C-alpha cells in the first residue's frame, strides 16, 4: 500500500522531541525549540477529520464586485437608465426573463445549466459600511456593522468544532492569512507553492527529491509574477489577532509550519490537475486546492482570493476580464473535482465585501455600494436563484444602493449547519435563520 504517513502534531512531538537520535538538522533544531508546546499538544486529542468529510472552499472577490453587472437585471428599466453606457445589453447569458449572467461568465452558466449553481441575490447586512476594510472585516468576522469582533467566523468554527485537529484543517492559498481564519490560537496554514513550502534541506537532496533550498533560491530569482490587479484593491486579508503573545504565536506557527510542510508536499504530488484552467493567479490557486483535495489532505476549509474588483474607472474591460477568469477558473476546478471523484464533497462559496452603486459614475466606473449576489457551487446545492433581488426603484434604494434582502450570516449559518454539520449559534454568536443552500 502506498499510504502516506499522516503525522499528527502528537506523533511529531513524540518522535522528534521525546525520542530519536538528534542529528543536526534545522528541523531537529526547531523541534528542540518546541519543548514548551509539547505538554499541551500531547494532551490534546487528535480529532482528525478524515478524508471523507465535506469540504468548503471560500473564494473572496476583493475590492467590491459589481453585482449588478454580474447577475444582470437586464429587463429592469431602472438598471438600464442608471447605466447608460456601462449597462450590459447584448450577449447576455439569460437565466430567466429578468436576470442574466455577464457574457464573460460562460463557465458559470454551464454549471448553472447543470443544476449545480445557486445564486443568492441581494446579500448584505444592516447599516452597510462602504469602506473596503471595514466591510471586509464585517464579512470575515460575521459581526454586526456596529460591533467589532476580533476573530474570524472560520477561526471560531475551527476553535469550536475542530478542537485538537492538525493545522491543515484550514488552508489558505496566498501569503496572507485572512482574518476569517483568525482565532484565539493560530490554526490553519497558508502557502503558495508546496515545492517551496519547506525548510531548506539539511543535507544534499536525496535522489529524486528536489532540494528545497534550490527551490527557494530559484523562486527568489524568478521575475515578478503578473497579477491582474489594476485597481487600488489587490487583496484585503484583514488584520490577524490572537490571545497569544507574539512570541508564543510565532512558536506555534513555526511548529505548524514544520508539521504541515512534508505532508503538504507529498500530498500535492499525489494528484495532478485535469481540466482546462485559464492562466491566472486564481486558477493557480484553485489548481493547488484541487491537488490537495485529490491527494487527501484532511482539510475542512480552503480559502482563495481574487483581487482587482474596485472598478471606479473604466470598468467594463477590467470587469469582463475578471469575470472571465472567475468563471473559467471555477468551471475548470469544478470539473477537476469531478474527474477526481471528489465533486460531491466540495462546496464553493464566493463573496465580496460589497456590491457597487446602481448608477455609473462619470469615469465609466462605479463607486462602492452594498448588497450583491453570492455564488454557491456544488452538486448538492439548491440550484437556481435564491434570496430576493433588491428593488432598483429610486425610493427603495439606500443612498443610491440596492438594499439587502438576505443577511450574509444566514448563508454562513446554512453552510455551517447543513454542510459542515455543526451548530452555527456558538460560532455566529446568535441565531440566524439558516438559508438552506444545500
Amino acid at each position: 500500500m502506498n499510504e502516506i504517513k499522516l503525522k499528527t502534531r502528537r506523533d511529531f512531538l513524540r518522535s522528534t522531541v521525546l525520542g530519536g537520535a538528534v542529528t543536526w538538522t534545522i528541523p531537529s533544531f526547531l523541534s528542540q525549540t518546541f519543548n514548551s508546546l509539547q505538554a499541551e499538544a500531547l494532551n490534546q486529542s487528535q480529532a482528525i477529520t478524515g478524508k471523507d468529510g465535506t469540504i468548503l472552499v471560500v473564494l473572496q472577490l476583493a475590492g467590491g464586485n459589481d453585482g449588478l453587472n454580474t447577475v444582470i437585471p437586464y429587463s429592469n428599466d431602472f438598471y438600464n437608465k442608471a447605466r447608460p453606457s456601462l449597462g450590459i445589453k447584448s450577449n447576455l447569458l439569460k437565466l430567466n426573463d429578468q436576470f442574466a449572467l455577464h457574457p464573460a461568465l460562460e463557465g458559470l452558466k454551464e454549471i448553472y445549466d447543470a443544476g449545480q449553481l445557486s445564486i443568492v441575490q441581494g446579500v448584505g447586512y444592516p447599516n452597510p459600511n462602504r469602506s473596503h476594510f471595514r466591510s471586509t472585516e464585517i464579512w470575515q468576522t460575521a459581526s454586526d456593522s456596529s460591533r467589532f469582533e476580533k476573530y474570524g467566523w472560520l477561526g471560531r468554527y475551527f476553535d469550536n468544532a475542530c478542537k485538537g485537529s492538525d493545522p491543515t484543517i484550514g488552508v489558505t492559498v496566498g501569503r496572507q492569512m485572512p482574518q476569517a481564519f483568525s482565532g484565539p490560537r493560530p490554526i490553519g496554514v497558508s502557502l503558495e507553492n508546496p515545492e517551496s513550502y519547506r525548510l531548506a534541506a539539511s543535507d544534499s537532496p536525496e535522489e529524486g527529491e528536489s532540494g528545497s533550498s534550490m527551490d527557494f533560491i530559484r523562486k527568489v530569482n524568478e521575475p515578478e509574477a503578473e497579477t491582474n490587479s489594476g485597481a487600488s484593491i489587490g487583496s484585503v486579508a484583514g488584520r490577524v489577532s490572537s490571545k497569544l503573545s507574539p512570541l508564543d504565536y510565532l512558536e506555534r506557527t513555526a511548529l505548524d509550519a514544520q508539521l504541515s510542510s512534508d505532508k503538504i508536499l507529498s500530498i500535492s504530488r499525489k494528484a495532478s490537475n485535469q481540466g482546462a484552467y485559464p492562466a491566472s493567479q486564481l486558477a493557480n490557486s484553485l489548481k493547488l486546492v484541487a491537488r490537495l483535495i485529490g491527494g487527501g489532505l484532511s482539510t475542512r476549509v480552503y480559502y482563495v482570493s481574487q483581487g482587482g474588483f474596485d472598478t471606479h474607472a473604466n470598468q467594463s474591460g477590467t470587469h469582463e476580464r475578471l469575470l472571465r477568469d472567475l468563471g473559467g477558473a471555477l468551471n475548470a476546478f469544478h470539473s477537476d473535482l469531478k474527474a477526481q471523484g471528489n465533486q460531491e464533497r466540495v462546496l464553493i462559496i464566493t463573496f465580496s465585501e460589497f456590491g457597487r452603486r446602481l448608477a455609473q459614475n462619470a469615469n465609466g466606473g462605479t463607486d462602492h455600494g452594498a448588497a450583491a449576489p453570492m455564488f454557491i457551487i456544488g452538486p448538492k446545492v439548491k440550484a437556481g436563484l435564491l434570496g430576493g433581488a433588491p428593488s432598483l426603484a429610486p425610493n427603495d434604494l439606500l443612498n443610491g444602493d440596492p438594499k439587502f434582502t438576505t443577511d450574509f450570516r444566514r448563508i454562513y449559518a446554512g453552510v455551517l449547519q447543513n454542510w459542515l454539520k455543526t451548530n452555527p449559534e456558538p460560532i455566529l454568536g446568535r441565531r440566524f435563520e439558516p438559508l438552506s443552500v444545500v
Partner: protein
Amino acid sequence: MLKPISSSDWNFEKAAHLLNRAGFGGAPAEIDRLVELGPEKAVDSLVYFERTPDNTTNPEWAKPDPERVNRFMEMRDAPPEKKKEIRQQEQRQEREHVQQLRYWWLQRMAFGPRPLQEKLTLFWHGHFATSVQKVKSAYFMWRQNEIFRRYGAGNWLGLLTAVSKDPAMLIWLDQAQSRKEHPNENFAREVMELFALGEGHYTEKDIAEAARALTGWSIDRPAQEFVYRPRMHDDGTKTILGRTGNFGGDDFLKIIVAQPQTGRFISRKLWVFFGSENPTEQFVDGLAAVFRANGNNFKPLLRAIFLSEEFYSPEVVRQQVKSPVQWLVGSVRVLERDLPPPQLSINAIRILGQDLLAPPNVKGWDGGLSWITTNNLLSRYNFANYLALGESPMAMPARKNGRRPRMPQAARVDTTKLFPETVQKDKERLLAALQKRLLQAELKPEHQSAVRAYLDSQGEIDELDVLHAIRLVMSTPEYQLT
C-alpha cells in the same frame, strides 16, 4: 502623558531598541556609540537627521521625461505591430526602473546615513499606500518616495498637501479623472477613512461634498505635473465636517487638519509603528497633545516618543513582529554584509509578504501578527540560510558520517568581522556574542540550550559552525521580533 526617560537608565538594551525602531538596527559598535551619547543626544542624532549629510544620488531616469508623451502619441498612431513593440519596450523599461528604485531605496535603508528618515519614508509608504501596479510609472513612484523623505518629519498639512497633489496619488485613487458632473469619491473617502481621520469620524455626505471640493485637481500629462483645471471644478457651496463654503481641495485638506481627531489618528498610527499595538485612548490623547502643541509637526512628537519611559517599557521592547523589510535590512546590518543582489533582495521581501511599491491595497500592510503565516515563517528561516551561508544550498554539517557540504560559492557572512577569534573558540562566549549581536537580548532558556547543544555537538568551532549557529539563531521565534 509621556514620562521622560532618565539618563541614568540609559544602556545598551535601550540604545539597541532605539536604533531598531527609529532605524533598522545595527552592529554592537554602532549601538555603543549611541550609549555613549546619552539618551538626548542619541535621539537627536536620529531625529535631526538633516544635520547629517546624505549624498545619495538619484537614479538617472528620475526626472520628467517629456518624450514619454510623444512615445505614447506615436504608439497611438502606429500600426498594430509597431504599437505592440513600442508598448512592450515601454513596459520593459518601466519594470527595470521600478526594480532599480526598489533596490535604490533598500540600499538607502540598509546603509544610508539617516536611518530615521528612511524609516519614516517606509512608514508613509505604508500609510499612503500607493502601488506601481496602477500608477505604472517609476518616475511617479520615485517622486512620491521623495515626498515622504522630504516632508515625512515635517508638518502634517504640508505632507498631506504634497502627497495629494502629486501625480502618483492623483492616479492611484482616480482623483485626476474626477470632474464636477460626477465627482469620483475614491480619494476623498480614503483621506477621511485611511489617511487622516479614521472610520466613524465623518459621514458619507462629507465624502460626497469633499469629492466635489477636490474636483479640478488633475495631472498635466505632458509635463508630468499636478495641474488645477478650473473647468472641471465644482464651484458651488459645500458642507464638509460642519463647515460650509465654496471650498476647493486645499480648503478641504485644511478643514481635515483642523479636526482634533486627525492629531489623535496620526499620532496613534505613529505610535503603533514605532512603539506598540493597542495603546490606550488616554495615552493617545497624550501623544496628540504633544503633536498639537507643536503645531502639528512630527519631529517634536517623535522626539518625545523616543525619549519616553513608555517607549522603553517591557510591553514595547522586543514585542514587535519585524516587517519583511525590517527583517532583511536589519539582518544585513547586524551581519555586516551586503544586501543580496537586486532581484534576490526584492523577491525575498515580496515572498516574505512586503512587496515594496506594490502594497496589497490602499490601507497598506496590516503588519503585526499578520506578517506571520506558516508560509512566511518557512521562507524567513530559509532566507536566513541564504543570508548567513551564501548562495549554495547549505546544509548543517554532517561530520559524524564524514560528509561535509560544499562550501558556499557566493557572498556569505564574514565571521571574522563579527566575532574575534577568541570568542569563536569559546562556546559560551560565542553564544553570548551571537545573542548580543543578533537579538540584543537573550533567547528563551530552551532556545538557548538548543543553540548550545548544537555548538557542543561540533567539537572545535570553525567558521562554518559559526555560520550555522547564526542561521539557527535567525531561525528562532525571538529573531522575528524586535
